[in-house]
């Protein structure tokens, strides 16, 4: 038996749980993977390894859902240091891939992706190339993600992609219902599970995603469409202000142990 050929180096930079989960999947498949965690709060304090890791990466994944200024700074940094041919996958929940490409000098190597935390191997991943992008960049990006066992669907680039948009609209409607006092959060979730066979109640889902992320996605959709259809429930905003973001802070619509 010969030694395994060395696999390409993968660089993952971004939000804590998300980046680590994805990094774990690449490591399991034997990819030398660097995971650099940043929650997007300034100042930008990434490990000094970023410089070196970026220069030797064959693929980079940027997974910072928000704030947008931090995301842009991170993308610019990766754009400067990555080898010119390396695909740059950017998590596009609150911006389009076309917007991300615009921040770089490599629009042809940018691919947008959407996935909702918590990330598991069952999580479906949506990929989209920017309007200015190159369809050939899609192939390696898709291949890497398929090799770590993820399910891929290719869609056309748009803010919020497909699933984040459907799910956030559901969560928002349920949040309006809570705000208006029409039913308790428990009864709303029970009704949707028993009446519609939903795998989870929308409010429980909001708590799992993080209500700050839900509001950020709704705000991005409302800014894009400007039609009132994505107006976030004021209750969601109040909960974000109160730090009741869901599971990650111990309390959202539910109390998490």
């Amino acid at each position, binding site marked *: 038996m010969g030694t395994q050929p060395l696999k390409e180096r993968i660089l993952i930079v971004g939000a804590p749980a998300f980046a680590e989960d994805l990094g774990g999947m690449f490591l399991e498949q034997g990819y030398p993977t660097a995971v650099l965690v940043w929650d997007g709060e300034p100042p930008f304090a990434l490990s000094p390894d970023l410089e070196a890791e970026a220069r030797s990466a064959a693929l980079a994944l940027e997974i910072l859902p928000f704030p947008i200024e931090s995301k842009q700074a991170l993308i610019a940094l990766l754009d400067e240091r990555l080898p010119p041919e390396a695909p740059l996958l950017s998590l596009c929940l609150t911006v389009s891939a076309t917007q991300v490409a615009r921040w770089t000098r490599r629009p042809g190597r940018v691919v947008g992706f959407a996935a909702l935390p918590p990330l598991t191997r069952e999580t479906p991943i949506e990929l989209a190339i920017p309007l200015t992008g190159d369809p050939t960049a899609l192939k390696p990006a898709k291949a890497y993600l398929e090799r770590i066992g993820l399910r891929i669907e290719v869609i056309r680039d*748009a803010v919020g992609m497909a699933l984040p*948009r459907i799910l956030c609209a559901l969560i928002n*409607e349920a949040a309006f219902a809570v705000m208006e006092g029409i039913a308790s959060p428990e009864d709303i979730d029970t009704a949707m599970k*028993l009446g519609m066979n939903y795998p989870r109640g929308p409010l429980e889902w909001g708590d799992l995603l993080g209500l700050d992320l839900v509001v950020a996605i709704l705000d991005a959709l409302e800014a894009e469409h400007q039609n*009132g259809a994505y107006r976030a429930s004021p209750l969601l905003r109040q909960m974000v202000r109160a730090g009741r973001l869901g599971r990650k802070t111990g309390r959202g619509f539910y109390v998490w142990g």
Partner: protein
Amino acid sequence: MERVGIVGAGTMGRGIAYVAITHGAQVTLYDVAPGALESAAAQIEAWLREAMGKGRLDEAEAQRARERLRLSTALEDFAQAEVIIEAAPEDLALKQEIFRQLDRACPPDAILASNTSSLSITALGAVTRRPERVGGMHFFNPAPVMRLVEIVRGLATSEETLRALSDLARRWGKTPVLVKDTPGFIVNRVARPFYLEALRLVGESVADPSTVDRLVRALGFRMGPFELMDLIGLDVNLAVSESLYRAFFEEPRFRPHPLQRQMVQAGRLGRKTGRGWYEYP
């Protein structure tokens, strides 16, 4: 043991009657259309046999259930009823007329409940002399199978009425949830974005229906929005969308999608016409 009157022996009325008689209630099932009661009785018999076949009921239990069912074409037969569940066609004027008649025919302390999916419980209670004893009891189709019942609180509905209806649902093996009388209650309202966002995605050429369905199923849903629209019927789905949009005074979140209407105009109503978003040869 409760004495229950059911108005309308259609899809829902017969399903609710089956649930009631198999959980110990004495049921008077009332309808005005010729043949409706016979057809309901035959369906209930078929369900009883199916339950026996699966070992969920024995012969003695099935026989007792049969004996608890009484068919009627006269509202006077409700004179002893404790709870009435109205499951007549979804038409406010018709239901209000039925509630006026029920108010006269039933004992003054009887609870009058409606199975309406989209009409105002408050507007039904308002035509009676007992609005505090009028509430919603919204079962889901098929009633013998679906565990959820939305218990709807009209503006005048009393706590006692809500408690009585919730307890009844629990005794019948159902899970009640409590909801204020508002358009679409919980399920028909909160499920709206599931369809509307999917339609907007297709309308904007972000993805095609089968891609959206695959993604949604991968997230753990049993069916994608387009498959589900085909099952429900695109005409029915459009009617619910339009009714909610009107009821919320044109709130943009509920705006129906032109694609829905176009599919209905083309007669592509889903499974029942052999074609909707998908083909059913």
